[in-house]
């Protein structure tokens, strides 16, 4: 592993009865972009606030470069935070905004001017320096907010929902911009979002949170393809992962999951140590299932109840037992409503979860 830039150790925050962050531990490497992903109210903003020091944790520790920063006041942790509403100083022009952090640090005038010019050029703000924030558009404000932080050369750059206030088109542009900033500065970035697409497209690693708990922390690829639990499976992906409840058992030698007489063959590898008769949930990504020949031993049959073509792909809704599955197939596939089809899930990506806890059985 490369240098660990930020480490959270059993970080906990309680607001009275409410546990906003529940003993969260994770580590983030230098130069990496980490996304904190979760529905609103899951504690990701609280985590962010604790990292920058605006909020004091109830227990646990925060380490930056291996040093605990709990006793360091917010302004001296050398972390930068970009707010969701940008929080630019509206009474100051862009230049004043950009140099604020440097003036606070008492930097010499000439150095300030040089640094500000550098950042302004980097963020294409060099022509807006004398404008007041009220005269700027949302994406420019965003860049001012980022620039105001970048100019202080922070150890970690934290972005709170940076794209949520932008129009769709601006959002794509800004996403590219953020990727460029990350690439050119090598900055460690922590990125809070509730949008899985953003997280998947920008982050190396994703920490998925729900109700204050860290549900999974892994690379974007792993979080998507190998969800640790049903929450992660359902929160990522559109359409989300399909879940079929059933009983684990064996059909002959074949491990299967049965529901109301329908059976889904599961790969032996995924079954691991699951005992027969256990209540399980089978998780299958819509795009990791394909149509198969009726006699395919790894396939199961389901009846098509809806066909929704979406350009090059078509979303099929199929019913097995009492569960509906969505699968994404190529448009043009011969499937019509009412037809019986054979579906073969990708053996590698099929997941078995414990029905009670929602946790994935580890092979």
């Amino acid at each position, binding site marked *: 592993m490369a240098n660990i830039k930020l480490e959270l150790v059993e970080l906990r925050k309680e607001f009275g009865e409410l546990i906003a962050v529940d003993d969260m531990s994770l580590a983030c490497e230098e130069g990496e972009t980490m996304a904190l992903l979760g529905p609103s109210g899951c504690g990701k903003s609280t985590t962010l606030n604790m990292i*920058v*020091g*605006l909020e004091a944790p109830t227990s646990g520790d925060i380490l930056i470069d291996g040093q605990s920063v709990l006793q360091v006041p*917010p*302004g*001296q942790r050398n*972390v*930068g*935070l970009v*707010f969701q*509403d940008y*929080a*630019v*100083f*509206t*009474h*100051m022009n862009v230049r004043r905004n950009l140099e*604020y*952090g440097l003036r*606070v*640090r008492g930097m010499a005038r000439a150095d300030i001017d040089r640094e500000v010019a550098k950042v302004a050029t980097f963020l294409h703000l060099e022509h807006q320096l004398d404008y007041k924030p009220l005269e700027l558009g949302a994406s420019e404000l965003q860049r001012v*907010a980022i620039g*105001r*932080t970048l100019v*202080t050369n922070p150890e970690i750059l934290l972005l709170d929902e940076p794209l949520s206030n932008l129009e769709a088109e601006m959002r794509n542009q800004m996403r590219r911009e953020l990727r460029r900033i990350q690439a050119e500065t090598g900055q460690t970035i922590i990125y809070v979002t509730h949008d899985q697409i953003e997280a998947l497209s920008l982050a190396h690693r994703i920490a998925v949170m729900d109700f204050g708990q860290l549900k999974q922390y892994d690379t974007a690829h792993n979080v998507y393809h190998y969800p640790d639990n049903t929450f992660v499976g359902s929160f990522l992906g559109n359409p989300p992962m399909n879940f079929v409840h059933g009983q684990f058992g064996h059909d002959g030698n074949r491990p299967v999951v049965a529901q109301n007489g329908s059976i889904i063959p599961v790969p032996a590898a995924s079954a691991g140590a699951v005992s027969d008769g256990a209540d399980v949930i089978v998780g299958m990504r819509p795009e990791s299932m394909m149509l198969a020949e009726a006699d395919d031993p790894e396939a199961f049959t389901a009846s098509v109840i809806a066909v929704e073509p979406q350009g090059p792909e078509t979303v099929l809704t199929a019913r097995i037992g009492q569960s509906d599955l969505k699968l994404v197939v190529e448009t043009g596939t011969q499937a019509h409503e009412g037809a019986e089809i054979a579906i073969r899930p990708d053996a590698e990506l099929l997941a078995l979860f414990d029905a009670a806890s929602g946790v994935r059985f580890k092979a």
Partner: protein
Amino acid sequence: MVTKTANGGVPVRALQARARLFDPNDKRYIGILFITPVQLLLITMLIFPFGLEFFVALTEWQPTYGTSIWHAVGTVFSGDTELGLNYYYLVTDEPRFLEALGRTLAISVLSLCLEFVIGLGLATIFLKTFWGKRIWFTALLTPMMIMPVVVGYTWFMLFQYSGPVNQVLGWIGGTSAGADLQWLNNGVLAFFAVVITEVWHWTPLFFLILLSGLNAVPENPVRAATVLGASNWRIFWTVIMPNMRGVIIIAFVIRGMEVIKLFDEIYILTRGGPGTATETMSLYLYKLGFQDFRLAYAGSAGFIVLVITVVMINMMLKPIRYELLEKR
């Protein structure tokens, strides 16, 4: 006028003709109808008396002359007397008048600054959470609900030679005997007595306005500055105060408009005395008009004061005109 008709068939011209006569539902008539009472009230109770006084003030009429006021107005038009002498005397030969103007300004500026500083200090305390906040808040607001005359009498009692103010000052000075300060009989002290009374009465308003301003300062820029490493002090001056600009101007203008009219409390406390040490514009005008019965002369002085006040207030209002008219 009425062109948009969806009445099916009725000639537009006929409708227009009727509308031109009188349509009680027409926007303009309603507007005029609703504005008329206030205009009537202001015309009878402001324009008319001021108009009357304008003519009287050109003469040197006094009620003690025994002539009727209408006669005095008559002389303006008959050309029997020289007109406008009052103004000439006031500006060239009446140091007391100009002193009163200056004193009013001094009391106003000093009081407002003290009110601002104390009010701001208290308002910043009330941003925090502490026990009994609601009760203390209400208690702090009480002075501004008390009527000026009562404020005057209360402080008149407090400032007596053997009163509690001297007693407390004595204790602070380490003696059990009260301090030897003739608050209301010494010119300099009386000036400060007036200022203290005014500050007591109206600091709550500054406090209230500034607190509502502080609460309206957006939180995130403050947090952003904190994360950028700025000290609380620096944040206060570079982020919070600039955001309060409008509110502060409003507070000063609103209080400024009132404090330059200050009369009741001074009338009770000192009657402008000792000598003329606390004689403000209002007190001076009162003495001219109601002690010396020189109503015409007082009227002239009143017009000068009026022009000064209106000009000053309009200057002060300029920056907040927008806030006052803006729909929010």
